[in-house]
């Protein structure tokens, strides 16, 4: 058996979410193509959740493809590898896929065109490795959540040691409009994905894999079913097409009927969720010894002449990707890294492809539907769209009145920033921007509070020290004075006695 069916009653009871136009064509119908090598690659040091990687190469060094160029720092971090062979020309600030447009450190590599691999350690039967070794190699390959979460994958593999994991869920829902990189990957590399999933299964100690694929990807479902035929532990499940089906808790609930606790993690209910792209990267890393140096990315949007999926090296600038897809037909209203619902709007075309970038979109004004916001008519579309059961309109009006604490009390912390509310709002209120703003402010405030508490402790310590020193000095002074007085007194009587 390699298919499970979602009970219809569960589909009926799930009332959340929205149904955006998919816009997946034409990219999802075209085979993945090589993007090729741009003249310069900028590999950001921080492409993952956790501490930024520390460079281990110097400017001027010659590097080979797959060679370690920056090492992980601390427990939650991921190393970086050279995406091609070439010369490190700088370790300097570069444009980032970030809405602020602020630069951050990146390793700049000029390709030499030979694209020569560093010696790789292939493994013919990686499934025979033990779990800890699989996790170690995944960590060394710099693999992070490829769906966009960018959490270091090896950390999730090691979860099995602490919590008993029974089920691995492979997220192939790809619920974001436009994006089809996971769809193409499943169609073209189903065998690799299934092997990657079995490796993850072994590392986590789980006993079954559920692959959730939205029902708008029938080819991918067929391909995955064929690839999984030989493995009774791999189940392919068709899930309804609805945004945000790819959010991990929502997918867990759809596939298993279990609602993961809000303050806990998926592991608490015995589940770990990985993206199909991550599974494929695990397969490449274990079977061929290839570290993560490239990924499939969907280049699409109304302003792109020939939308398609490209296999691009990490560090390739978006401008190069658009060039490779026939260039831009018009000046886009927005350039987005990722999908249109949760992706990052970037201020220029220079942001590089990072490990978690699933799309590079150039959207026209008509697609973005940008319009001046008008007053909230309390239509409650946002309330019914919210997959978490929040009241976005109420939270936004509290944030607008600077009542961040109250917004947090009514569930801001549970907000996924999935964008479903902002998508349906007929008044075009930038709800998600309010939530990003409030979340950012709250975390900045808690950071500042920590810093101030630290400063206050230092200040108090110093004040106390100075006072103690003063007191000690005064005491010493008094003691000396007393001693002198005593000595004088001792002398005096004798004198007076002598005098008398």
């Amino acid at each position: 058996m390699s298919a499970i069916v979602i009970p219809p009653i569960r589909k009926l009871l799930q009332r959340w979410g929205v149904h955006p136009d998919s816009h997946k064509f034409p990219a999802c119908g075209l085979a993945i193509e090589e993007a090729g090598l741009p003249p310069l690659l900028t590999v950001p040091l921080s492409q993952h959740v956790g501490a930024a990687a520390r460079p281990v190469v110097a400017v001027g060094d010659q590097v080979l493809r797959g060679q370690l160029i920056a090492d992980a720092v601390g427990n939650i971090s991921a190393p970086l590898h050279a995406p091609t062979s070439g010369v490190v020309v700088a370790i300097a600030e570069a444009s980032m896929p970030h809405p602020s447009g602020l630069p951050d450190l990146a390793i700049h590599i000029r390709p030499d065109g030979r694209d020569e691999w560093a010696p790789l350690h292939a493994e013919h039967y990686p499934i025979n490795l033990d779990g800890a070794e699989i996790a170690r190699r995944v960590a060394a390959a710099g693999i992070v959540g490829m769906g966009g979460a960018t959490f270091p994958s090896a950390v999730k593999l090691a979860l099995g040691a602490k919590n008993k994991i029974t089920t691995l869920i492979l997220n192939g829902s790809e619920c974001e409009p436009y994006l089809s990189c996971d769809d193409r990957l499943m169609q073209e590399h189903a065998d690799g994905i299934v092997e990657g999933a079995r490796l993850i299964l072994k590392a986590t100690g789980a006993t079954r894999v559920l692959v959730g694929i939205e029902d708008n990807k029938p080819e991918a479902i067929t391909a995955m079913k064929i690839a999984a035929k030989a493995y009774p532990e791999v189940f392919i499940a068709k899930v309804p097409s609805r945004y945000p089906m790819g959010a991990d808790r929502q997918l867990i609930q759809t596939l298993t009927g279990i609602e993961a606790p809000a303050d806990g993690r998926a592991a608490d209910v015995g589940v770990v969720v990985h993206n199909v792209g991550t599974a494929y990267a695990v397969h490449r890393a274990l079977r061929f010894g290839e570290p993560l140096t490239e990924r499939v990315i969907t280049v699409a949007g109304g302003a792109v002449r020939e939308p398609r999926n490209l296999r691009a090296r990490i560090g390739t600038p978006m401008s190069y990707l658009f060039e490779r897809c026939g260039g831009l037909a018009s000046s886009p209203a927005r350039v987005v890294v990722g999908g249109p619902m949760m992706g990052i709007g970037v201020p220029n075309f220079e942001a590089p492809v990072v490990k978690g970038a699933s799309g590079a979109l150039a959207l026209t004004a008509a697609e973005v539907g940008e319009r001046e916001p008008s007053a909230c008519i309390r239509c409650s579309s946002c309330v019914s769209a919210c997959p978490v059961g929040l009241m976005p309109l109420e939270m936004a009006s509290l944030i607008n009145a600077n009542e961040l604490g109250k917004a947090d009390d009514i569930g801001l912390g549970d907000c996924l920033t999935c964008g479903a509310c902002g998508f349906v709002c007929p008044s075009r209120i930038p709800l998600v921007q309010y939530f990003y703003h409030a979340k950012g402010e709250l975390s900045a405030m808690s950071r500042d509070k920590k810093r101030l508490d630290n400063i206050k402790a230092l200040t108090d310590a110093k004040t106390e020290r100075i006072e103690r020193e003063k007191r000690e000095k005064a005491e010493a002074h008094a003691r000396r004075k007393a001693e002198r007085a005593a000595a004088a007194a001792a002398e005096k009587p004798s004198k007076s006695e002598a005098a008398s």
Partner: protein
Amino acid sequence: MLTAMVSLAAISSGLGLVLGIAAKKLHVEGDARVEEVMAMLPAANCGQCGFPGCAGAAQAIVAGEASPSCCPPGGKVVAQTIADHLGIKLDDGGEAPRPMVATIQEAICIGCTKCFRTCPSDAIIGSTKQLHTVMDEACTGCNQCTEKCPTGAICMIEVPETLGTWVMPKPAMVS
């Protein structure tokens, strides 16, 4: 009629007596809130607010002469905490100034130790005849060291904004 008047008079004088006694018994010397606000301020006594020390600022805030956001090292956290405590609403007064930290130009530093003896939060480390450095994490930007430095080697710089500290701006108000 008479009963009503007598009973009303009795009730009012009784209540008046209770209030009078309560006022005497529960009398508080000074305003307790000043102490409380004082405890919320960073206590570096840096004087950036324009009041003599944190105690002066606390008094001014409680008296309503100064805004809770008058403390630059405290920033939004302190302002919000005090405003919440006193039940005041913070005015959304546009962009807050970026926090500042001291930095020492190594070329001119003579290692006189004056600055780190002045620093209220021990943010400067170094010793006699040696280079001093500022620990950004502990610096409140109080500017006291700048005044003490005999060679003018210390200046205040803005803490640069990074990807980690950037916050999405609040959307513009709906017209």
